[in-house]
């Protein structure tokens, strides 16, 4: 099996660990049953096939046996009970885990085809790239996610950090993770949510405490262009006088839309379009000009800007650090 960044058998957080342990137990049990029963089947097929030159007499007719039936009822019942108890234990340990006071709280809102992240205690709003602190097993700092949806059903699944949980409108859900390895963890929406379900990708950045705190500090600042008294660039003027502001927010400016991702710190993100493209100058420009080239059917409209305005808006967005 080649290395995969989304392998469910490479857990890096407690819920994923518990599931991994349980899944090994279940897989080994099922594999053992498979080997035993298929060996019996293979033996029957080989041993009891009618041979050439067999007489045409019928074999002995056996109608059943209560002892045998009882045996192959009781043994499966015992196996089922064992599997059930193992499963019940993990369900309780993952779903009913207490929330420690040091836990970080993030509200995740699924949108047709992107993710919104709000950190209510930290006053941060961002999109598509979730930043969470590394959790030291000695002093766990888990992250608890509250899962909401703004439109259709979605599902949050980053295999190495835990199982999936759905985001359903009018039905708040929650899940948690305590990643013990720093780095980037990938995943994607796992509940069909419409045309661009396939490109609703997930990126979770697990950062050591100091790095995470620095990220928090940066996110809490206003971008320079939003500072009171800063000169209004051409790009910003175009941005604020077109439909961009209906959907997007840039803190400290009149742009307060909530339908699309918050762009206040756009340039702090590695990707755009929910992970569908790298956040480069060309891609950003293309995304504004012709979103269907990157993500056909996404809700971002082609803005129909002149080349000049397009360059100016792109340049403005590139100042949002």
């Amino acid at each position: 099996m080649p290395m995969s960044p989304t392998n469910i058998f490479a857990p890096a957080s407690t819920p994923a660990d518990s599931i991994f342990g349980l899944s090994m137990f279940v897989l080994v049990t099922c594999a053992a049953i498979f080997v035993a029963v298929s060996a019996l089947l293979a033996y029957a097929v080989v041993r009891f096939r009618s041979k050439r030159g067999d007489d045409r007499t019928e074999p002995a007719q056996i109608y059943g046996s209560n002892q045998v039936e009882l045996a192959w009822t009781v043994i499966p019942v015992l196996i089922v009970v064992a599997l059930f108890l193992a499963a019940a234990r993990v369900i309780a340990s993952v779903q009913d885990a207490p929330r420690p006071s040091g836990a970080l709280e993030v509200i995740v809102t699924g949108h047709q085809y992107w993710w919104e992240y709000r950190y209510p205690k930290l006053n941060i709003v961002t999109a598509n790239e979730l930043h969470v602190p590394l959790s030291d097993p000695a002093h766990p700092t888990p992250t608890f996610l509250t899962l909401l949806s703004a439109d259709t059903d979605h599902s949050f699944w980053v295999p190495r950090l835990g199982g999936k949980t759905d985001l359903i409108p009018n039905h708040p859900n929650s899940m948690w993770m305590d990643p013990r390895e720093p780095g980037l963890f990938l995943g994607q929406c796992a509940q069909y949510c419409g045309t661009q379900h396939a490109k609703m990708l997930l990126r979770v950045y697990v950062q050591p405490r100091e790095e995470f705190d620095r990220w928090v500090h940066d996110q809490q600042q206003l971008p320079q262009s939003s500072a009171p008294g800063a000169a209004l660039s051409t790009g910003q003027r175009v941005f604020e006088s077109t439909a961009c502001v209906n959907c997007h927010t840039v803190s400290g400016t009149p742009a307060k839309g909530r339908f699309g991702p918050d762009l206040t710190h756009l340039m702090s993100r590695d990707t755009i379009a929910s992970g569908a493209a790298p956040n480069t100058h060309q891609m950003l420009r293309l995304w504004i000009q012709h979103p269907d080239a990157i993500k056909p059917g996404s809700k971002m409209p082609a803005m129909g800007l002149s080349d000049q305005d397009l360059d100016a808006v792109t340049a403005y967005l590139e100042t949002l650090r």
Partner: protein
Amino acid sequence: MSANTIALTELPVSRPFTLRLHEWVTTVDHKRLGMLYILFALVFLIAGGIEATIMRLQLIRPHNNLVSPQVFNQMFTMHGTTMIFFVAMPLVFGFANYLVPLMIGARDMAFPRLNAFSFWMTALGGLFLYFSFLGGDGLYGAGGAPDVGWFAYAPLTARTFSVGHSTDFWTLSLLVSGIGSVGTAINLIATIVCMRCPGMTLGKMPLLAWLNLTMAGLVILAVSPLTAAQLMLLIDRYLGGHFFDTQAGGSAVIWMHFFWIFGHPEVYVLVIPAFAFSSEIIPVFSRKAIFGYPVMVLATVAIGFISMSVWAHHMFTVGMSSGANTFFVLSTMAIAVPTGIKIFNWLATMWGGKIRFATPMLFSVGFLFQFLIGGLTGVTLAVAPFDWHLGNSYYLVAHFHYVIVGAILFAAFAAFYYWLPKAFGKMYSEALGKLHFWLFLIGFHLTFDFMHIPGLLGMPRRIYTYEPGRGWDIWNLIVTIGVVFQAAGILVFAGNLIWSYFRGKAAGNDPWDAWTLEWSTSSPPPAYNYAMIPAVRSRRPLWDLKHPEDPDWRYE
């Protein structure tokens, strides 16, 4: 017997086409309706197969651009809806229609006109679904098939998210075909309960009749909530209701409950008839009576009851309480016990026999092997925490195809080859039958064995394309290659059907030296099935006839 009925079957063979067509369209004969159901299913099997092939070609490599996301989403919706409602269900009903009256020594179903009505409702449902390609967007555009997925989760089906009429065609098609399904189910129950021939007590019915009785009961219980849900969805979309309209306070989760309280028993609606085929075919080709008949009946009825209490295992990821999740783990796993009993009884039937590997038996052994695997992967999915990973991944897709293709379709192919000589009066080509088996077996395993792996590596279902670098590429390529073998197998199968109809050798009444009543009448059976209603003393009346020195009724 009546001279009239005999005269009818002896009409000249070279009647004009329009007359023959008229006979088929207006028929109330259970055998013709059975064959119509099956023919209908085969036509839709081709449609669903083409949709699957388009999806597999699109997924052959990452970032492929063969079809747009819009088309891909229509393909998986149509594929799922078609295969469940217009291939598997009609196939099951077709065989039940054809076989049940013959096997219980009756002349027809209890309600022949209801039978015809039910078939034509199903056919109308299928036409509704496919008309969406032309009329789906109604006045708004050029047309479009439904693209909400075969379980059509709310609120994607709300008018806000699904404009035009594609969802309406989906709803109407299920509503209408659901009426046909319930009609057939009522008919089967009435037939089996009331029309058994003298001597055939419930305990002496062929297992096929018992299993179809259970199936019919499940259809009534399972399809009704689905029909109710479709009505609610229509009320939401056109009469201002808010059952599932989350923007007005409706509940998306209620739709899931309605759908899956249909959806899970539906799996057993399809697989129990597959068990029925195997329970008839395996004994005949092993030359032994079925092992543990009463236990097989009990296990079937147990599966029927338990299957009504497992639906929410489709919903382990929607955020149910830990208590609810735990309950559904237990109820789901409980089903593994009677299912396991069935597998062991089939094995015990083969044990000590003299197994003849004609095509029906090959497919039945394939069924047994693949159902074992599909059942075990089902156990892995029943473990809720494991399902938090596996649910909605390609592992799940591989699992249910293992059951639906590897078990149900293999058993259906076994049934085709086993009863074709009865229905056509001609033998099929054994060489082509074996070629079909091996091609399909290879194709099936290439596609669905390797499909588990991308799921374990994090690939969710219903994505029209995927990112490179996730370790999914090679597996998807192999999965797509398997399609070629499966398609070739289906072509050989179709060729064999046509060849045997025109060129097959005369089959005679009882080509398999079998034991149930249908083999005592001519092949094909006359319209009235039996000139004299038979009387039976055991579960294997023809065994009793052939072995007067050692009849079954001494032991039952």
